[in-house]
């Protein structure tokens, strides 16, 4: 049902784009409505789980939660895109349609019940992203980012297809249901495990885990800020949804977790490398790129732990991380000037005297990313660490908290600039309703999920079970 809504939405958007000159005003609000509608629909129907299209797609349950995350992030991103595109004078009708299509791709990924559906969704999402990254085609850096992303993305896709081939070859089926139920018997076949591992490696590219992270900084820096915000949240959530689907055998049947060590290692590497390298970044988008690598690391802890708590923890983490990151990128896009100016941390000096609101908001988001309670980011980490300790991975939790300490430095550096330093350059911030509402909604969610984590976690727990 939600897939049909989005699909029809895409077609309608195309028609609107073709038929009227006013599409610039209509399309964003149309997309917001579409996304919000789908998100709310998914949340409401979270407990009704059934399978569609002869065992290809699952509706409800985990996929509903993921669909809500994707759609909600997309809605917020569209809101903050309106001003951003105006600022860059880079409005292209495709922009919103591409976002809609990528959301459809993500939804297919998260609800796939067949490995081929996963692949289809992934490709739909990735191709839209390749185009979105380079949407501002007059800018050199955007083109460079787009090409880089495309090449490495294609490389990852190669891995995934190879993995699928091995899985199919050894198991004789691509149905995830079948794989999950017979996981134990299949897993005596080394080819099957190898195929799954290669499949996971391919997706490790997509979630930006070390050592498959090389594309992240350049792509995040080069693409439009709003697109970066979208990729780093919904895109990441989509890739994680696949991990969670594939690990459901381990989680629900208590099957041996062959990949525990693999996940533990890439998680530790991502957390540490992401945090350490981010320290030296002055460009805020680049800093958040490395921060996104380390956050991927925290989430992967949950995969390594592989129990119900940690899976619920990852989903919670993904949801709140989306709110926080979209909020942060919206603030950046509000402050950013034309021609990629003012994304350097120095431009934030004395921000509190220019715009107390934006200064307070960027600080809020930075504290939330650093995981200071009682903001939502803390609970994300808490649940994941909780799962890890339950699975006897205390060492990983310790690596996690240590890298959190490191990461505090660069997060609060932004606050230092915004509040403690005096401004050096003068500029006026032009933003309007769209960006502000995106920021306010994200901030409200960050605070609400911080004080009442049970609201969100309750929904997730029902979905996971």
């Amino acid at each position, binding site marked *: 049902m939600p897939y049909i809504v989005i699909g029809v939405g895409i077609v309608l958007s195309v028609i609107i784009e073709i038929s009227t000159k006013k599409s610039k005003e209509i399309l964003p609000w149309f997309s917001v409505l579409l996304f919000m509608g789908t998100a709310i629909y998914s949340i409401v129907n979270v407990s009704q789980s059934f399978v569609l299209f002869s065992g290809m797609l699952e509706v409800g349950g985990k996929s509903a939660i993921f669909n809500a995350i994707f759609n909600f992030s997309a809605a917020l991103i569209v809101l903050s895109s309106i001003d951003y595109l105006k600022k860059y004078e880079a409005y292209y009708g495709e922009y919103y349609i591409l976002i809609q299509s990528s959301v459809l791709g993500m939804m297919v990924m998260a609800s796939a019940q067949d490995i081929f559906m996963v692949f289809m969704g992934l490709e739909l999402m990735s191709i839209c992203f390749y185009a979105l990254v380079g949407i501002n085609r007059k800018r050199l850096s955007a083109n460079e980012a787009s090409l880089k992303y495309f090449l490495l993305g294609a490389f990852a896709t190669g891995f995934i297809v190879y993995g699928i081939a091995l899985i199919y070859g050894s198991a004789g089926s691509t149905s995830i249901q079948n794989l999950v139920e017979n996981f134990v018997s299949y897993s005596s076949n080394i080819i099957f495990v190898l195929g799954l591992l290669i499949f996971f490696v391919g997706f490790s590219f997509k979630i930006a885990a070390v050592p498959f992270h090389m594309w992240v900084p350049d792509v995040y820096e080069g693409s439009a800020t709003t697109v970066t915000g979208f990729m780093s949240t919904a895109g990441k959530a989509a890739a994680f949804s696949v991990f969670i689907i594939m690990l459901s055998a381990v989680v629900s049947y208590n099957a041996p977790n062959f990949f525990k060590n693999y996940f533990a290692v890439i998680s530790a590497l991502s957390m540490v490398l992401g945090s350490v390298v981010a320290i030296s970044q002055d460009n805020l988008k680049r800093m958040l790129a490395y921060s996104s690598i380390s956050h991927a690391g925290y989430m992967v802890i949950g995969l390594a732990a592989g129990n119900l708590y940690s899976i*619920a923890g990852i989903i919670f983490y993904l949801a709140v991380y989306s709110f926080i990151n979209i909020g942060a990128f919206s603030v950046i896009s509000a402050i950013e000037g034309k021609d990629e100016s003012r994304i350097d941390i120095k431009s934030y000096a004395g921000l*509190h005297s220019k715009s107390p609101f934006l200064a307070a908001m960027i600080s809020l988001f930075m*504290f939330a990313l650093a995981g*200071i*309670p*009682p903001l939502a980011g*803390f609970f994300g980490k*808490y649940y994941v*660490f*909780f799962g890890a*300790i*339950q699975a006897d991975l*205390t060492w990983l*939790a*310790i690596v996690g*908290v*240590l890298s*959190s*300490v490191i990461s*505090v*430095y660069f997060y*609060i*550096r932004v*606050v*230092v600039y915004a*509040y*403690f*330093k005096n401004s050096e350059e003068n500029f006026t911030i032009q933003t309007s309703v769209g960006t502000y509402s995106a920021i306010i909604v994200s901030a409200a969610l960050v605070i609400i999920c911080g004080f009442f*984590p*049970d609201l969100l*976690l*309750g929904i997730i*727990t029902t979905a996971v079970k």
Partner: protein
Amino acid sequence: MINSEILTYLLLTPIISSILVLLFKNEQAKLIRWFGVAASLIAFVISLVAYTQFDQANPLFQLTHQVVWIKSLNVSYFVGVDGISMLLILLTTFLTPLTLLSTWNAIEKNLRMFTFSMLLLEAGMLGVFMSLDLFLFYIFWEAMLIPMYFIIGIWGGERRIYASIKFFIFTMFGSLLMLVAIIWLAVYASSITGFFTTNLLDLYKVGPTVPHQIQAWMFGAFFLSFAIKVPLFPLHTWLPDAHVEAPTAGSVILAGVLLKMGTYGLVRFCLPLFPQSSVEYAPIISVFAVIGIIYGALVSMVQTDMKKLVAYSSVSHLGFVVLGIFAMTIESVQGAVIQMVNHGLSTGALFLLVGIAYERTHRRDIAFYGGIAKLVPVYSVALMIAVLSSVGLPGLNGFVGEFLILLGSYKSNVLGSVWFTVFAATGVIFAAVYLLWMYQRVVFGKVTNHELEHELTDMNKREILFLAPIFLFIVWIGVYPSTFLNMTEVSVQTILQQVSAIFFVNALHRNWCWYCFICYNRN
């Protein structure tokens, strides 16, 4: 257990008023100042009401209020007090209005945000002292970092950015390891009781059963976090920076209450949760405490900056508190608790006085002053009282705490050696040296610097107003400590019983100290 909502009201007062402050405009300076003082005074009144409802003979936690908060993790909002936390809550609510009153001239910039941060900080500290759920405790413990970080970073001195970041990262480092330990305990509790719990009362039963090897790690994680906050030598390096760079109000709260959170944590969590490890590591920790006492005193002696001198004296004084806690006798722990309050009062007063002089001359170096007794007699007397209280003159508060700690550690079976007491006692002597020497150089002699004659004016009524209550308590505790000792006695006994239930550490203390005049008064 009787539910009482008074602590929740106490906690909500500063939180709600901090949000209300944001409704003012920065230009309405006078209004904001009075509002801040009024709000914190209301909190003080509520804490007094709570005190009247508090029964000091009851060993259990009182005035408890429990509401389920996060069902999936079995975390509840659970607050309550015993004697120790009641005393520290009173200290917090007592000092906050006074510090707000002291900022009249010092804080001009962005006053609204300052008052907001101070009130939020107060809420955080109160939360730390009253939470009976480890998870809740952790949240307050961390959340309170943010307002303090802003207070140092925005209104601080020249090196404020360095100091604030150092403060933040040091504290965060310790507390995140504690977080891992908290989660581990919750998970471990589920293997014993069948459900996850971070409820302190449940964990008091679970904690001592943790296998020995792991208990040492758990203890280490908790201890590290608290030791950084105290700060215990050699983890103290953030303190002088933070103190010197923070505005006066920040320093007072930092020294007066924030550091007590560390020692409070040791008493409330480390000892009863991990009794075996506490006893086992007590001698080593006490060695560091004694080193801290002497080191802090020696470093204070060579300071040329008054604020830095007071800051290092904190390291020395809190060494006493840690020594008292880990000596684990009734006297020493009670002494430690009373010393927490004493240090809050006397060091708070010293910071306020240094701040008063600094507001007028913008100088803190001792050499700049000299012979000010003739210029500012009232100020000199006030400084005298604060200095003597900090030195530990009998009849003033400092003496009571230090005496009890030394007495208790002398006969402590856990420490097992009198050398701790011997070396710690030298700290008292050094304290007299550095503080009186500082006093002599600043106050006595001839007026060497003639700029002083124009700049330095005596204390005004407002300044007398906020120092007078502190001096009242300095004398009160010094002359009649029983008021405060009685409050904590039962609670301290309960905690030590939890420790000695496993190790019989604390026998026969009564016949030993029959001649001690404090005990004599008390009985």
